[in-house]
């Protein structure tokens, strides 16, 4: 077998999201001759980015002071905020907007479009960005340190044999690998385990966000209006809420987030989102409009107490694969960009990962997370306690002498029959899409069917055995794309994985109660092709 081809850089960045691109731009600004390469699994930069998103512009002001002269294609100044408590499918009460959720001075953007806009600016500085190539696994040096990444092979058939166009993936070697994969990165997950980076932190916790971009009949949208809601369609014990952002050109972005620490194995996050859209206050806005694009993505929620050690021999973590979202603010982009810029300063100055963790923890990024550390875990005790606790933590600015603990999401499901399922008063809905398969259509997701299934389920005996009786196969419900199906045929029950529908949200990798699903990268360029999400 021939030697695997390799390319060498000073730094290789995994993921062309806000963190990775901010890192690359900052690094080249400080040291123009640094050789920086960014690997991105999406077919084009931004196609697998999904976020609300209202962003704080400070890091962008610092990174590209002139950005306002040539703003990203979707960039609407925040006008006013509303915060609603949905009591059921028809009633709603407006609440005072919590202080963290005031958005004056912020911008509503499409984060996907923002990244697609950042990429050429990075390239103009000499950053080499390669979309369509998936970093399939870390590359290790002889001494065990991370030495770069290995790009996945292309042209492998479902059975593992090589198709006619088979192309072996190359190694990209660098003294420093920057992991900027976003929430629950697949390489990050491997490396956290290998280097035990989470030994001194709480388990990471997550939410699932589902979003649609709508084109409305002319005149209905109010550009800059920001509406958040809590309450219905969730029950009191499930954390989550919705966002509704009014963009320009008669478009609105609507989305729904549910904490993945929910305990009901029968809960269906995608259905909850569809319910929300049919609320009496929301449906009239959307009715008659059309969906432009839709998708889903896990969100990292663990914050301060769940932050793993962000450095290891040969590599560092930045952005959401470290876990920097400020949950009460519902924002992570500014944190991701800020961490990328700080990391660039560190790497250029020292040329090594050592010291990054301390630098990050001493930075404003961490200060911001510390302040709000107890708010999200407070909602484990239900909605009312959560709101009271959030009020206390906000008033005291995080000076409570305690830190509430986080627990791993996979462990939170209750077994069937051990609790009474809440009545969420869900209604019959009429807005499209009809079901998850109809919804996946709007993600334009694409995977060559003749490739190995990238969702690895090592022990399918669990699926047809214990899981049926204990949890009723929750994978068939928590996946927002309908990837998992239990099929009964002449050979009995079996798990069918419709991997081609996968939108790379990573929920299955997080929520499976037996930790029996491992999300790996499919062939480069596969996956959703989001437009302006």
């Amino acid at each position, binding site marked *: 077998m021939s030697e695997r081809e390799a390319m060498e850089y000073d730094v290789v960045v995994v993921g062309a999201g806000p963190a990775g691109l901010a890192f690359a731009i900052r690094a080249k600004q400080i040291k123009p001759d640094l050789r920086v390469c960014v690997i991105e699994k999406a077919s084009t930069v931004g196609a697998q980015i999904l976020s609300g998103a209202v962003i704080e512009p400070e890091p962008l002001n610092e990174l590209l002071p002139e950005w306002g002269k040539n703003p990203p294609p979707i960039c609407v100044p925040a006008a006013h905020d509303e915060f609603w408590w949905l009591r059921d499918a028809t009633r709603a009460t407006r609440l005072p907007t919590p202080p963290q959720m005031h958005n004056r001075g912020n911008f509503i953007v499409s984060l*996907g479009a923002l990244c697609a806009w950042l990429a050429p600016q990075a390239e103009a500085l000499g950053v080499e960005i390669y979309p369509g*190539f998936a970093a399939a696994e870390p590359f290790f040096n002889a001494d065990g340190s991370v030495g770069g990444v290995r*790009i996945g092979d292309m042209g492998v058939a479902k059975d593992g044999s090589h198709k*006619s*166009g088979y192309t072996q993936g190359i190694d990209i070697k660098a003294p420093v690998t920057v992991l900027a994969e976003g929430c629950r990165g697949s390489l990050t997950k491997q490396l956290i385990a290998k280097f035990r980076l989470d030994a001194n932190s709480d388990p990471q916790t997550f939410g699932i966000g589902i979003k649609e971009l709508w084109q409305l009949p002319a005149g209905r949208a109010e550009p800059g209006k920001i509406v958040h809601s809590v309450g219905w369609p969730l029950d009191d014990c499930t954390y989550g809420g919705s966002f509704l952002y009014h963009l320009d050109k*008669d478009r609105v972005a609507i989305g729904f987030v549910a904490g993945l620490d929910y305990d009901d194995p029968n809960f269906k996050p995608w259905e909850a989102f569809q319910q929300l859209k049919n609320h009496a206050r929301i449906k009239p806005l959307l009715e008659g409009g059309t969906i432009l694009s839709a998708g889903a993505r896990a969100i990292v929620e663990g914050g301060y107490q769940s932050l793993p050690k962000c450095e290891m021999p040969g590599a560092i973590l930045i952005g959401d694969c470290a876990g920097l979202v400020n949950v009460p603010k519902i924002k992570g982009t500014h944190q991701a960009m800020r961490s990328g810029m700080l990391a660039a300063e560190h790497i250029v100055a020292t040329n090594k990962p050592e010291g990054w963790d301390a630098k990050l923890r001493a930075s404003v990024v961490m200060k911001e997370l510390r302040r709000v550390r107890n708010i999200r875990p407070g909602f484990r005790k239900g909605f009312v306690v959560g709101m009271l606790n959030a009020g206390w933590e906000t008033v005291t600015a995080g000076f409570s002498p305690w830190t509430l603990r986080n627990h791993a999401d996979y462990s939170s499901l209750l077994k069937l029959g051990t609790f009474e399922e809440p009545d969420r008063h869900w209604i019959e809905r009429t807005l499209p899409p009809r079901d998850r398969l109809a919804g996946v259509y709007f993600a*334009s997701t694409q995977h060559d069917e003749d490739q190995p299934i990238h969702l690895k389920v090592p022990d399918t005996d669990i699926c047809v055995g214990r899981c049926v009786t204990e949890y009723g196969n929750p994978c068939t419900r928590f996946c927002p794309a309908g990837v998992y199906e239990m099929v009964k045929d002449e050979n009995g029950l079996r798990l069918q994985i419709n991997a081609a529908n996968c939108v790379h949200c990573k929920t299955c990798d997080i929520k499976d109660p037996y930790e029996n699903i491992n999300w790996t990268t499919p062939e480069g360029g596969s996956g959703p*092709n989001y437009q*302006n999400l």
Partner: protein
Amino acid sequence: MKILVGYKRVVDYNVRIQVKPDGSGVVSDGVKLSANPFDDIALEEALRLREKGIATEVIVATIGPADCQAHLRNGLAMGANRAIHVVTSDAIQPLTAARTLLKLIEKEQPQIVILGKQAIDDDCNQTGQMLAALWNRPQATFASKVDVTGNAVRVTREVDAGLETIEVDLPAVITTDLRLNEPRFIKLPDIMKAKSKPLETIEFAALAVESGDHLKTTNYAPPAKRSRGVMVKDAAELVAALKTKGLL
């Protein structure tokens, strides 16, 4: 032997096409653009002919706006020797495209010109045929197999009745069908190498092409939505429903 390959940039085949609310066109901002799939097949065939030692040089050419350069670099990364970019920000119709390509033929004197049978944006399927007529050379369209022997090329064509094999003298125009080949994956180091390959830009106006854009688009509209279906309980109800519609 030189081969000239037409390499058009279109909205990617994975993108769900959306008509602008005012009907003036389709949404193209924030939308992924990539090579017309039939043109990728054309380039692949040209590269295979070069690898067989039949051709010595493969040139990719495109007509499009300034930012098409990245698109041509992909063609170079796939393996073309050099690229020609005819720069215009206007959308070009097939006759104008054919006249422009003819100018490039006069300049480059290729023995074979390979184009996609059609582009997936307008689905015209005209440029190859028009070019052959303007050039006054043979055409072999909808190719699913190409064999070059000496000064002729034997082409298997996908036609309505099945497969048809014809032999034409070179120089000639070939247009590709879907089953001709499967384009290769681009390798990362080749993207690097493509950056230093020659890419010539020519202003469209400098070619003094007589415009053949005689079609005017008045309006774009999405296909009419299917109305909701009705569920019936049994055959009797179905028959009754069909009768009330006057279908039985």
